């Protein structure tokens, strides 16, 4: 493989020969050595790099000085499958670190301090990778709870799967990332800055990793290690929970009531259900049915009466819809039957 480096300022080109199958480290070494020893290029900023290969060519425009340029070259020019995988793994790794995790060694259980940059990746790098993380608080207490994050590349997709490492029966959290969709965007943003409007997709990806993997894992490990739970819905003040529940439809409110005793309490207020009833069924229903029901069942002030009313109305409503559907179905059948008979008679 031949690499041609061109300095626009001095209008000089430097050709570097690299063995076809060389490791990343070798490539970095060769490049930095050549650039440093070249009298013109060493001092100047390298503007353009062309990679000449037998099959494909890549062009990289760099406006930075050489150490950065070398890194950039590796990021952008060597776009082979494994590197796409590596880039996504690094992204996920960063998101996990963002949630307060630290990476630990599988065997010793001690924190691994390196691996903070893209180039620190363990080698050899294969299509499967497993990383282990824990929280600093757990390490300090001498605990051994940790989470395992497995990465696997399959075709265009990278599967990320995480779970507690010392509890095989625990819930696993998955996310599947499309290399075609995200890697190019990441590269683009790295090269051009976020202002170009491509940040949205990447942001979506980060959000996906956060909500589906990093946060659930954090919850699992906190629970296991007896730590305070991360911020979540239950930590909201009562009045805010109430405000949110006010906006949940009645049928979902009934399900929320089954989750825990605090929410059962919050979802049981008469006022709340009165509102839900009016929202869902309205005045017509109330005049026809609700009023009578309340008179029979102890009046408006009786605890839970509106909830019962809602449930009853809901049930009759669904029954009605089902009946209607059945009637429509039957009439359809009858008309076709009639038509065939008419045809036969003729």
């Amino acid at each position, binding site marked *: 493989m031949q690499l041609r480096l061109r300095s626009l300022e001095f209008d000089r080109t430097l050709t570097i020969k690299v063995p076809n199958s060389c490791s990343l480290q070798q490539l970095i070494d060769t490049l930095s050595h050549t650039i440093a020893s070249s009298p013109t290029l060493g001092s100047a900023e390298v503007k353009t790099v062309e990679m000449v290969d037998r099959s494909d060519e890549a062009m990289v425009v760099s406006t930075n000085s050489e150490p950065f340029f070398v890194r950039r070259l590796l990021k952008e020019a060597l776009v082979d499958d494994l590197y796409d995988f590596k880039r996504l793994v690094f992204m996920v790794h960063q998101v996990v670190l963002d949630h307060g995790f630290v990476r630990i060694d599988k065997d010793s259980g001690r924190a691994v301090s390196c691996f903070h940059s893209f180039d620190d990746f363990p080698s050899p790098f294969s299509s499967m990778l497993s990383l282990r993380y824990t929280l600093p608080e757990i390490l300090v207490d001498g605990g051994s709870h940790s989470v395992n994050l497995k990465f696997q590349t399959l075709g265009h997709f990278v599967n990320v799967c995480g779970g507690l490492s010392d509890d095989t029966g625990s819930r696993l959290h998955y996310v599947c990332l499309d290399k075609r969709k995200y890697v190019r965007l990441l590269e683009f943003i790295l090269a051009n800055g976020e202002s170009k409007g491509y940040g949205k997709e990447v942001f979506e990806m980060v959000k996906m990793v956060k909500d589906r993997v990093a946060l659930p894992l954090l919850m699992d490990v906190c629970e296991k290690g007896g730590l305070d739970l991360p911020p979540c819905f*239950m930590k909201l003040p009562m009045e805010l929970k109430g405000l949110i529940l006010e906006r949940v439809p009645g049928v979902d409110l009934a399900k929320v009531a089954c*989750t825990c005793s605090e929410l059962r309490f919050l979802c049981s207020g008469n006022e709340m259900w009165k509102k839900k009833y009016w929202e869902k069924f309205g005045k017509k229903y109330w005049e026809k049915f609700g009023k009578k029901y309340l008179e029979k069942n102890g009046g408006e002030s009786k605890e839970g009466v509106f909830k019962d009313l809602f449930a009853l109305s809901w049930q009759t409503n669904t029954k009605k819809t089902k009946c209607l559907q059945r009637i429509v179905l039957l009439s359809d059948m009858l008309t076709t039957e009639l038509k065939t008979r008419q045809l036969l008679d003729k």
Partner: protein
Amino acid sequence: MGERGEEWEAVMLRKAEEEESKAVKKVKLVTSDGVTMEVEISTVKEMETIQAFMNATDTDNSIIFPLPKVSSHILSRIMELMSGEYDQELVKRLSHEELKEICMVANYLNMKTLLHLTASAIANLIQNKSVEFVRHFFNIINDFTPEEEVQLRKTHEWAFEGVDED
């Protein structure tokens, strides 16, 4: 002549005062992580907590308001939402954590529009989900005994038709 001079002075003073109030007043918000954000006074109008404070004290041009419960990250997200006129699309892009944090801050600063927006967004997350999903999603610890839960599910049986896949 003397009287006129005084009159003239009074007019000039009033003019100067008017001009001063016309100049865009800025408010400095100091977040929990020590970042100072300078925002225009019109932005703060929706933050009723701050507004009440400013009404109570005689405001001058450089008012500093500490927000010990708000991080700079969340505050910048809020500014984004405000400048985007509370676009639903922007809300959809928030992570659940951010959503919850913003909801809390909106409550603290008494920002009605934002509070309603975030509360509705969280409520939307609950819609059409199974009990297990809601529990896991919001990290709710089940404190019912198995018998209690069976009983509860029985009384709420009507609500369990047509739940979305998790």
